């Protein structure tokens, strides 16, 4: 079991998810966030916070998004921890509308 960030987070990075993570397991690059599966405690606190429904429990992950399991693990291992809320990336609001949220 783990919890996965998927591509809806791309060019968006509303970091509402980070503020409720009890264990600081989000990592970030210029594009999006990733969850470190070794640190995440699967509490699901982040899932309802995401305004673009980018986060899934692995059991709920749509089939076409399964590759994100590996991407989260690999990326999180090398990237810095996101400790606090960051500014959304430019164009985030537009992308949110584009995704239909």
């Amino acid at each position, binding site marked *: *079991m783990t919890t996965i960030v998927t591509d809806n987070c791309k060019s968006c990075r509303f970091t509402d998810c980070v*503020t409720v993570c*009890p*264990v600081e397991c989000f990592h970030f690059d210029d594009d999006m966030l990733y969850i470190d599966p070794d640190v995440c*405690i699967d*509490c699901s606190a982040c*899932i309802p916070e995401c305004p673009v429904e980018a986060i899934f429990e692995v*059991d709920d992950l749509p089939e076409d998004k399964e590759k994100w399991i590996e991407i989260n693990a690999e990326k999180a291992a090398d990237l810095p921890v996101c400790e606090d809320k960051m500014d959304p990336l430019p164009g985030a609001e537009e992308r949110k509308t584009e995704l239909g949220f």
Partner: protein
Amino acid sequence: MSNIGTEEHPLQVAIVGSGPSGFYACEALLKSDICVNINMLERLPVPYGLVRSGVAPDHPKLKQAIKVYARIAESPRFKLLANVKVGLDLSVAELTESHHAVIFANGAETDRKLGVPGEDIPGSHTATEFVGWYNGHPDYRDKVFDLKSETAVIIGQGNVAADVARILAKSVDELKHTDIAEHALDTLAESNIKDIYVVGRRGPAQVKFTPKELREFESLELCQTIIDSEEMLLNPESAMELEDKSNSAQRKIYEQLSKLAALEHSNKPRNCHFTFLKSPKELLGSGHLEKVVFEHNQLSGDALQQSARGTGETLELETGLLFRSIGYRGIAMPSLPFDEQRGLIPNMDGRISENQQALPGLYVTGWIKRGPTGIIGTNRADSVATVQSLLEDLQTLDTGTEKSGADGVCNLLQTRNVRYVSFEEWEKIDQSEIDRGQPKNKPREKYTYINEMLDLLG
């Protein structure tokens, strides 16, 4: 401007309570750019609040949150004074005299009342008591739960009710390698329970469980889940609720319930029934609970604001065991304002307030600030917000008088013969619990009496 919050003049902060909200407040203070000394007071000799004594023993991964708290506690600016009850061993006034600011993070330790006749008849318990008991909380160590009844009823449909139902439904094999308290495991091993009814006052579209917690009811070793498919039918307003985009989390919950309702029945020896639109009217029995009278409800009001209204039609269920799991409730702290109706400390952005006036130097966070909802991580955002208010007030917190901090408090405790427990001493208890668990293949075997914990420290 005063130099408060600098190396020469550190801000002295007391935090009351060592649960998630207390530790996240601590983290936020330590991350800020001011120099701060933190003294955390905890009424038990052991820290971590409901992460230790609320979170279910069969959810060990969630308890890993305590690793984060142990890391916070390593700061040389942090001090734990456990086994100290604020309001009893130390007064609020004594804390404000010795600190620039006090943050109350003392949680919600009692429970809401149903307000029906027979509520307190023997055999009727609160989920709070049962949860504390199986998790080895010293307050509930000597509670007796008689599991001879073949039927158990749980009132309420939140995640605590799910925890209680699951612990009753699981086999000893499913629990024996968790950190469940030994006395509880022994009692559960003798359980006669065959039917567990989890009863909600509203409908299947309004339950407060989360999908993951419901999914666990798909695959219990000894227990099958039973939901009457007729009971899954929705009134038009509930159907509208589930269509609403803002309510998509609730739709997932309903889908998970529907999945449970569609499961083939097997012949496992225990059944867990989820049933809706019923409120207990009366608990009956001579000297001990024998039956519960329920009234059927219907929903009234607009979508997303529906409440349960009795139809007058009643139903009786024979049972000797009932748990009220309808929410926790805060306890008033002597000399602080208290909102009796909501059971919390009134505040404005985390500043404790009375008649809309903030009381200087007094702050609140976590369940005692918001009320008893939200999971571990919810308290992190909440404590960050409270600490932000405190930092905005920084200059007003220096009243010109010297604040003795830990020295002052420890002196007082010594003159009162209060045996306070430091974080290093807790680590000793922690290690001993882990060692005791090892031969049984348990992550730990908790100490459940305060004197056992203190004896260990000598």
